[in-house]
């Protein structure tokens, strides 16, 4: 069983997010970067499948500038066997079709049985890379995995639907699955893992090209506004108005 796990380095949820003066992207200098949360779960799922099978290979694949080697090392420290770094000068395209093509080109000769990726990235949150990539590589794809079961050349995936519903689907291999956070308990790397990661192989490759059909116009911090509305009338009217406001205006009900 050969499994690729796509991991992305994203700003941590508590990291400061300074915006570049031209509003094109965040100022990367002051950011605390971490592994994208759902990618961490995807990696754990892959490692567990490998451990259950007793054999196989887990390969961490990431795209971005040199700084992303931190999350690549983290993946190797946790137990991935080797890594592929698709090296770009910038954070990469925000067009998921471009990103997915670059991953697909990098992986097309590897013959992976499974490609796991996080459900979506915590920075731009397109949620499409794993799915498009599966299509580009001619693989069966499933999104939003809450559980997986591998056996007999198949993978069974429990998919999360709306309102607490879920469905089981069975996919033939090879397959590309996007993983939902919370389906397992990601491990903390042992010291041996951390030390061993230094000796593991990271293949650095150039990204293939691609015409971006999407781009960011402007990045900015949402402006918060304070508005006070006094609700008047009898108690019944007040309650009615309040419920109406909460339901239709601020949509919290």
């Amino acid at each position: 069983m050969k499994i690729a796990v796509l991991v992305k380095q994203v700003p941590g949820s508590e990291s400061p997010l300074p915006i570049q003066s031209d509003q094109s992207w965040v100022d990367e200098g002051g950011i605390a970067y971490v592994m994208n949360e759902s990618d961490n779960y995807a990696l754990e799922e892959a490692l567990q499948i490998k451990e259950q099978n007793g054999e196989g290979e887990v390969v961490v694949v990431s795209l971005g500038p040199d700084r992303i080697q931190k999350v690549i090392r983290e993946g190797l420290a946790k137990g991935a066997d080797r890594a592929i770094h698709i090296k770009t000068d910038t954070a990469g395209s925000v067009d998921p079709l471009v990103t997915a093509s670059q991953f697909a080109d990098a992986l097309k000769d590897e013959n992976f049985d499974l490609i796991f990726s996080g459900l979506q990235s915590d920075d731009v949150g397109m949620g499409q890379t794993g799915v498009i990539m599966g299509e580009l590589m001619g693989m069966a794809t499933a999104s939003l995995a809450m559980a997986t079961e591998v056996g007999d050349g198949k993978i069974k995936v429990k998919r999360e639907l709306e309102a607490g519903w879920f469905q089981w689907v069975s996919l033939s291999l090879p397959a590309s699955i996007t993983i939902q956070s919370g389906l397992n308990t990601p491990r903390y790397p042992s010291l041996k893992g951390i030390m061993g990661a230094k000796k593991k192989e990271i293949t650095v490759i150039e990204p293939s090209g691609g015409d971006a059909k999407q781009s960011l116009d402007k990045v900015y911090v949402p402006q918060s506004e304070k508005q006070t509305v006094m609700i008047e009338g009898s108690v019944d009217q007040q309650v009615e108005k309040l419920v109406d406001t909460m339901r239709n205006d601020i949509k919290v009900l």
Partner: protein
Amino acid sequence: MLSNLERILFVILVVVSMGLAWVTFRRMFKVIGRGSDPIDWAKALAKWPKGLSVFLSQKTLFKTRPVVGAIHAGVAWGFTLYLLVNVIDVLYGMVPGFHFLPNHFIGDIYRFFVDFFSMVVLVGVLLFVVRRFITKDERLVTNEPVLLSESARKGVKRDSLIVGVFIILHVGFRFVGASFEVAIHGADWSQPGATLLSAAWAGLSPDALVFGEHLGWWMALGLILGFMPYFPYSKHAHLFMGPLNYMAQIERRSPSTLEIMDLEDEDAEQFGAAKVEHLPQKELLDAYACIMCNRCQDGCPAYQTGKELSPAAIEINKRYYFNEHLKEFSEGADSLDSLSKWMLSEEAAWSCTTCGFCIEACPVGNEPMVDILRMRQDLVLMESNFPRDAMEVFDKIENYGNPWGMSPMDREKWTEGMDVPKMREKGSAEYLYWAGCSGAYDDRGKDISRSVAKIMNEAGVDYAILGNEETCTGDSARRIGNEYLFQMQAMQNMENFEKYDVKKVVTQCPHCLTTLKNDYGEIGMELEVVHHSEFIADMIKEGKISPDKSLEEDVTFHDACYVGRHHGEYDAPRDVLESVMGEDANVVEMPRSKEESFCCGAGGGNMWYEINTGKRINVERFEEAIETGAKKVATSCNFCMIMMEDARKVTGQDETMEVYDIAELVADRI
């Protein structure tokens, strides 16, 4: 005194007994030799004055349980005297016509002391037996949730009975023998006890008296020969293993400061202790020094609140493990099971707050807490098996430089609206003021930081903070067992210290204090680090600040473990408190204070994860504070404050008790 036949018999018995004892003793030291870090025996033995002085003064016995300690001292002194008595008695029996300085005042004094101490030992040991088997002092047992091997639960009792009976019979028969001797030779003013007892033998024939004297001799000395081979198995071995352990003690910068691990060591197969042979030799010797008195568990915050941990059980389990596997383990066989299976459960290992009470209380210099820290290192570094919440804390420290996981750019926010100099602006300063993560991110912590800064400004101190350049010292990481993360944090901070040529540090966080002063010192960065309590106390003494003595309500003070037991400072915070107390108000002490203070429950990483077994430690301590009748509890540690504030809320005592840091009480009055 003895007949020739008796003499031959005695020599044979001595050879057999000593031979058997020798075999066991050798194995015992071979077991100790199985440990990882060797004991430097030459260095240890060179410290014989230290061992001797502890042995003779018995001073470590009086720290906790002074009454029992006094009885023990009587028994121990009596026994020390008996070392001489037994030699003289053997000479008396074996050398025809030998009498120890008869009709000489030195001989008389000797006989008087023997007579007196025989009674002291008999009464003392009898009291011990009564306390264990009749009145059943609950401190002598270890409660159920604690992992204590079945053989130990039974064995400690049996061993105590054997040792008790042995001493009573050995000393008793020596005493009876002496009374027969008096009956034969006539009353002896130097042996009032024996003389008194000799009256009981009035009317016995001379032959019967001689028989009695021989019986006394044989029972007294024969019992020693009988006991000798058992001695290394019994906890009575503490008699000399205790002082030896004291001499072999590792000098640590603080009880929780372990040696720095070489993480780059390519050949290292093991970090921390998974199996007993991974523990240093000194910590195996600990098990032989332990008399199983359970003093360590008397004030252990985990044990006292019903958790799975008893520091005593660690040593007792080790000892019984050695006893049961003596032959094979001493000959080099691997110990099969991991420590968590038989020495200390995992939950127990995580329950330790590293408060240091067990080490403080131990009369023979044992360090059960250090075993726990080593086990944690294995669980974290090798097994990656530790509380989930601790994992989040590691990630937060690694990613954001603080265990709260808040933005590193918000670290100096507490200074807003205040004039607090930053190193990056000032370049250098006499003192680095280290607010620490709690002082930067916790709301009450920020109050403390602002108070300290206000005091320093008022006193005109040349200081600066690192502000956003500061990052977690790595205390929690290190105590939880994550040496790797600790070293990463240390390197970052030490770089800054070098950049700004930092030599002196003031901090209100006792955990940062211990780490900066001791753990960084162990790495090689020597800093002069003082706690804010010491710093403020000095400011007051030097007249740089003079707070109003306007606190008109009684205050009780909660000692922080890492200021007290780990740093040895008990007076400074109290001096600071006294400086603000009004005329009719007092600092009232809790029953457990200073060296015996009871932990708040947050140390050793317990701030960050929850052990749900038993009562909450902070509630236990908070209730103790309430019972003093004071309306305020003063702390000198941010973690303690958080724990007290939390207990105040969960017990619904918001109205009854307020929590303040000593710095706040001062800052409000200048």
